[in-house]
């Protein structure tokens, strides 16, 4: 009897393969398969009936799904850009501080320490139309004479959600960009000063190109991580009212776990994955270009 002898590299990598297969590949394949079925959590036998392409057709022809898709893209675009701009500003200001910078850096990270669900409750209260801080402040200052329905009006509700998201995540950008600022060599900046560049020109043509790889890394990380905002949206509006703040995450979450229609929810999830891939690939390509421009190679 001969024993099968596996090559040493395979033996060494096997545990990693097995773990990745168990925790990533198998669930992924199972969810992909279930998206081809009318799988309903309370009726397990439905997992064995294939109805492809019904779920995909239903998702692709559903106006509510595409509205949620568009709104998610809008939220991602606005929130990520705002976070980047505010994070950049914050990092530039903190980098100029000579005393107490460590304290400031620590304070800057406080919002990251809050669970998103608590942030959701906090901002839901702040924007409450009846007892919320914003309306009370506006009415006390004489800037409004009626209760503004922050979480009811479609635009205002998205604004409120973006506020909560920006509050909690701007510091991620600030910290990464601050690290970039520390890594910038001083020679080109001094040369720019000698050549008579204004502070704006130094920033625009020297500092910013050096920071771009850091900004794109932060963008790529956040574009994957932004789905954590599900908790915030769930608590603040749960996609409502009248689907005005419905995002892919609330729609898919409700379909899968409340309605128990896991097959259809997974189909929507696979269409939505394209969105994440598109954003990540876009930022990755930008990152590569920025590194090439700096002569850092691919």
């Amino acid at each position, binding site marked *: 009897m001969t024993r099968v002898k596996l090559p040493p590299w395979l033996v060494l990598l096997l545990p990693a393969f097995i773990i990745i297969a168990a925790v990533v590949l198998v669930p992924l394949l199972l969810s992909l398969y279930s998206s081809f079925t009318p799988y309903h959590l*309370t009726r397990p036998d439905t997992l064995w009936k294939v109805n492809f392409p019904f779920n995909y057709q239903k998702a692709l022809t559903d106006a509510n799904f595409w509205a949620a898709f568009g709104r998610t893209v809008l939220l991602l675009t606005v929130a990520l850009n705002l976070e980047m701009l505010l994070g950049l500003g914050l990092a530039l200001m903190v980098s100029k501080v000579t005393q107490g910078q460590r304290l400031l850096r620590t304070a800057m990270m406080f919002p990251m320490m809050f669970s998103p669900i608590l942030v959701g409750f906090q901002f839901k209260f702040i924007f409450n139309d009846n007892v919320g801080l914003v309306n009370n402040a506006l009415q006390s200052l004489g800037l409004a004479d009626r*209760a503004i*329905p922050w979480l009811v009006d479609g635009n205002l509700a998205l604004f409120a959600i973006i506020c909560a998201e920006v509050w909690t995540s701007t510091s991620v950008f600030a910290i990464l960009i601050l690290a970039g600022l520390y890594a910038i060599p001083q020679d080109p900046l001094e040369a720019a000063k000698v050549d008579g560049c204004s502070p704006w020109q130094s920033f625009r043509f020297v500092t910013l190109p050096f920071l771009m790889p850091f900004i794109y890394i932060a963008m790529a990380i956040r574009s994957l991580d932004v789905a954590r905002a599900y908790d915030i949206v769930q608590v603040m509006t*749960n996609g409502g*009212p009248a*689907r005005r703040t419905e995002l892919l995450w609330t729609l898919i979450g409700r379909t899968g776990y409340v309605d128990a229609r896991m097959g259809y929810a997974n189909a929507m999830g696979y269409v939505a994955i394209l969105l994440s891939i598109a954003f990540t690939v876009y930022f990755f390509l930008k990152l590569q270009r920025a590194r090439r421009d700096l002569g850092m190679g691919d």
Partner: protein
Amino acid sequence: MARFASASVLAIVAAGSAAAQDQFAGTTIEAKLIGGQQYEALYSRIADWEAATGGKVSIISQKNHFELDKEYKADIAAGTVGWCVGSNHSSFASQYPTLFTDLTPLVPAETVGEFVPGNIAAATLDGRLVMLPRAQFDVSALYYQKSLYEDAGKAKAFAAKYGYDLAVPETWAQVRDQAEFFAAPPNFYGTQFAGKDEAIVGRFYELLVAEGGTFLNEDGSPAFNSPEGAKALQWFVDLYKAGAVPPGTTNYLWDDLGNGFASGTVALNLDWPGWSGFFNDPKSSKVAGNVGVAPAPKGGAGVRSGWSGFHGFSVTETCPDKEAAASLVAFLTNEDSQKLEAAAGPLPSRTAVWDHVIAQAKDDPYRSEVLAAFQETAATAFAVPPTPYWIEATNLVYPELQAAILGDKTAEQALADASDAVDELMQENGVY
């Protein structure tokens, strides 16, 4: 001879009692029970059942019902249903057609007969008694600020404007008039309503029934897109348009409503019995001492609204010892158990316990008023339609109701869209 006979009877009783004490010795019942302060006092009685039967109870999960609902669905999906007793709710029960067993052969008919018949009817799905109700019966009555009806100036102005005397409303049309009359936004509102999820659909459903409509036809197809449905939905639309309700009401759920009425900024509030103590407690409420409670108003068809629900306990189909599990369920819903729960405020689901709590409250005028209002409303209360797709249907209907309330669609358009969506859901699931 007589002495011998009585000694024999004693011996039989003693033997019977010892047998009952060991009836379920060695049996452990695994239970998933609803958690939360309001529900957990009852679980102190589990030790009494253990002492009386020799059985043991192991609580393997204790969560709020929304979380339990998700856990049950995951259990069904994964086939991990070896536990025996689970908390259930009348609005959710129809979603688990295979999970819980029929209690009819396990519980004596006379025991079942001691419950309020309407509750037993709502706990019976497709002829199967899937749960026994505990003393956590919910139906809504109308809370109001009494001082508003004692103000002569207001009464005169109201009569001049609406042509009838200002009195605690008995119909939903009167609620609309009075809510519009009392409203002085942004500081004071006439009324409010739960504006999202199953809650708004439940409120719409009870107004629909009060107007003489039905939610689903016999075959399960949607029936709410009707003149009665349009009338019911228009009630919500009118109040929102008139500014008689807080502008954020479409995001409100039960806690927002309860706290809103307790803050003294709302005149009329249709709400659950669990809030009665909170509203009249000076520590939690600005309207304490000024709270009146009236039965739920009636709609255009002369029918009182009365969307109701209740908590209860069920036994799983796969439980290895159904008899012991059913014994536990019967014990936790018996007269003593219900008296214990009802003493803290919740409404009972046994006829005798209703009489008991009313007798207990005779020296407390507020509690008596609360009980009288809720008892009258409970008499004609009705549960949600017995379909496994109720929750899914409400998730399709509520965004459309909101769209009408916020003015994105007309009431007719919103109902037509909601009806199409529910129709598609039912057809997809092969209901017809």
